[in-house]
């Protein structure tokens, strides 16, 4: 007669299986977290790997002779006695125009020829000048304009190399590709290598990334200054508009509003607004601010207002949470000694809630800083090569500049440029968030 298994045996036979499934489940959970964290690692790793080289830029350190025979120009005019200011101004302008027309390329060619004699050949001017970013001649005439006495002297000058030289020297393009796919001519390739070996071309910190504006003609000197200023303006607008309005709305909803269907609707509405796709705010901006109010396209003012509306719900939700965290006893004590509800709010509750509100506001502003889609719809993707001086000027913004650069046709150069710009953006965002976390830890109070 087969004895049925006792309960103890049944449990024992199943227990191993149950423990195995327990381990399985636990390791799946741990695996999920590790996947998530490794994704963070991969993301940052790939951006750092691509972006960091772009902070160093091939630069030619030349001993450049301002040869008076090549820059054939009259001495800088001085105001003659009896000459009117307007006439003098005209004369100065025409002198500056003549200065700009001088053969700066030949000057650079001659300087390069000191190290690579082959570059001095008369028909090699264009080829030699191709090593240098085309905007860099501006530096030379500015030097002469500032100090005309420099003509005839030999001065050390650092000129940014063209983007193709940069790509070639960093090895970001396959050197074995057939010549017809290369952007540098064979002479230029040879000269770049020689100059690099001689230490004439060095990898310098790319300060132009932070001091120049975007450029279409020469990628190597394109910088982020305009975009940074535009982004800062928009963040200021968000701080001035969204933060006070959001805080005051939160105060009303949390402390003063009667609890009824209307305020319930407002609450649902605010939660919903926080989840509305950002691009819809861009449509709002295009239809209302640009089409209806006729504000200018590409202006930081419009961008800032759109981002403010977008940030508002985040600020309201965070501020309400901060107010809710203040214990009721504080309010009751204030009311008990005769303060009005407004006084209890503004003199007692609000100061205690400010750190929490500030944390929410900083996170909201950081989010707004990284937002791109709504800005595309209000025309901030236009090419702008100037630093905006007022919020009504045309401007770019950091995330949009990244978008524009990734679409640049000189791909192998701009891929690293784009990643470098991302690093700048992430740097600002991480600083803001770290500040928010610091604030939270510093001022957090538990009751």
């Amino acid at each position: 007669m087969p004895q049925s298994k006792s309960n103890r045996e049944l449990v024992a036979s199943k227990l191993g299986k149950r423990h195995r499934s327990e381990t399985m489940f636990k390791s799946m959970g741990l695996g999920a977290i590790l996947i998530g964290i490794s994704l963070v690692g991969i993301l940052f790793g790939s951006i750092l790997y691509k972006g960091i080289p772009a902070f160093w830029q091939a630069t030619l350190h030349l001993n450049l002779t301002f040869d008076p025979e090549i820059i054939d120009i009259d001495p800088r005019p001085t105001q003659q006695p009896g000459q009117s200011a307007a006439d003098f101004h005209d004369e100065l302008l025409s002198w500056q125009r003549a200065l700009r027309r001088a053969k700066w390329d030949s000057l650079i060619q001659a300087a390069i020829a000191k190290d690579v004699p082959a570059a001095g050949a008369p028909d090699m001017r264009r080829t030699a000048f191709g090593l240098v970013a085309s905007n860099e001649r501006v530096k030379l005439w500015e030097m002469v304009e500032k100090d005309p006495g420099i003509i005839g002297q030999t001065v050390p000058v650092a000129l940014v190399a063209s983007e193709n030289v940069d790509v070639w020297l960093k090895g970001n393009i396959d050197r074995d590709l057939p010549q017809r796919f290369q952007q540098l001519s064979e002479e230029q390739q040879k000269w770049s290598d020689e100059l690099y070996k001689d230490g004439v071309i060095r990898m310098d910190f790319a300060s132009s990334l932070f001091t120049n504006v975007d450029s279409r003609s020469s990628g190597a000197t394109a910088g982020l200054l305009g975009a940074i200023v535009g982004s800062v303006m928009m963040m200021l607008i968000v701080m001035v508009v969204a933060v006070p309005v959001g805080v005051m709305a939160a105060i009303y909803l949390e402390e003063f509003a009667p609890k009824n269907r209307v305020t319930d609707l407002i609450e649902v509405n605010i939660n919903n607004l926080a989840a509305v796709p950002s691009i819809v705010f861009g449509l709002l901006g295009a239809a209302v601010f640009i089409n209806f109010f006729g504000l200018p396209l590409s202006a930081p003012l419009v961008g800032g207002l759109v981002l403010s509306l977008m940030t508002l719900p985040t600020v309201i939700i965070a501020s309400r949470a901060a107010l809710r965290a203040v214990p009721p006893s504080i309010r009751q004590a204030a009311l008990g000694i005769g303060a009005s509800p407004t006084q209890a709010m503004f003199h007692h509750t609000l100061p205690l809630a400010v750190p929490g509100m500030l944390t929410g506001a900083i996170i909201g502003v950081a989010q707004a800083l990284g937002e791109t889609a709504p800005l595309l719809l209000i025309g901030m993707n236009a090419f702008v090569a100037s630093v905006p001086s007022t919020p009504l000027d045309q401007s770019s913004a950091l995330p949009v500049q990244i978008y524009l650069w990734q679409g640049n046709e000189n791909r192998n150069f701009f891929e690293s440029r784009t990643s470098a710009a991302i690093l700048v953006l992430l740097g600002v965002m991480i600083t803001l968030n770290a500040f928010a976390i610091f604030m939270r830890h510093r001022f957090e109070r538990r009751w």
Partner: protein
Amino acid sequence: MNTMISLAIILIVLSFVYTWGASASRRIAAKTGQRLHSRPPYYGLYLVLWCAIPAVIVFIAYTLLFPQFQAAIIDSYLPQAVLNDPAELSSQTRQIENILNGVSVIGTPEPYQLEAVRTLRSFEWIGRLALLALAAVAAFAGTLVARRRISPHFRARNRIETAIEMVLIVCSGIAILTTVGIVLSVLGEAVRFFTYVSPVDFFFGTTWNPRFSTTGSSGQGEFGLLPLLWGTMMITIIAMCVAVPVGLLAAVYLSEYAGPKFRFFAKPLLEILAGIPTIVYGIFAAFTVGPFLSEFGSMVGLSINATSAFTAGIVMGIMIIPFVSSLSDDIISQVPQAMRDGSYGLGATQSETIRKVILPAALPGIVGAFLLAVSRAIGETMIVVLAAGNSPVLTANPFDAVSTVTVTIVNQLTGDTDFASPQSLVAFALGLTLFVITLCLNVVAIYIVRKYREQYE
């Protein structure tokens, strides 16, 4: 510079008024020997309000009325022939405004236009003086009225508090106003679009081929929504396939298994993913993930486009992981401890407790979190702009390039923004569709999450 100076003047005047009010209340109290109802600063503020508000009202009235006066003046100078032709009228009006603003105009302006400009210039001058005078009178009168009211019994504090409350109400109203603004502006332009293209063709069309607006109204494009909606759905499904298992398991581990130390480090690390701007994910997808996937595909014999629904979906999934995990984490940790203890008491292991007790109990809330994540995926723009490939055709292959609603909105509205052609107006119809879809998802999700959170409290 000019605005700075006027701002400074206004601030000086207001601080002067404030001091006057405060000191007047003190003087009165001292003279009558009575206690003031409110503290002196409230009387000062009361005066400031009465000084500023009338002036602001005058200013707003002026800004609203001035363009109409200007239009009337321009009309009075234009010949009858121009007035009868609406197109000519608007072009001439704009021309006169351009001359007035110092913008160079093409051709030589007519003498009557110059005459109009001259009148407008002097009118503007007079108008500004009048504004200044009126605002000053209003401010002064307001201040005097308020000053006369100051007496020991006057309840200045209550007045100020009412004013503060008004400001607070207006600020909360802005959130509502934003929603109303979105609905009205998007709906208005969408209705204009539907005068060109019938809603049936839009909502049920299977071809998306808008053509360029320059081909004229005769070259009507085809505006079929379905390929875009399908592309959006496909990417969203792929994204959820990535985000849901990873996010949910991570949340379970964090809330049930992890010790406080591990949690302290792992949670913020995961949440970094939520703080990264979407343009960064877009670049990551386009430069790193896309090429990798396409190479990987050719290794195993699959043809994967570098920019495809697959690439965009995976990267979007990564973006949503922290969203799913932190919302689920919240909800799982709200399941009461008694339920866990009961399950352990019956001899269940921890994983059995989680699978059979905690997750079913938290399920509605988790579903709410998923819906919020779906709505975020549908509305996401920069990842799909850079990585989905922008090919608005109906395809069932996730490795092909697709297009989405958001990509198309960006494509139709960037470049020349001429709000008159169906080619750009369609962006608003798409935006309306997007808004309605995400609104429904959000409302359902918010309802579920809210209702569920109250259940155990």
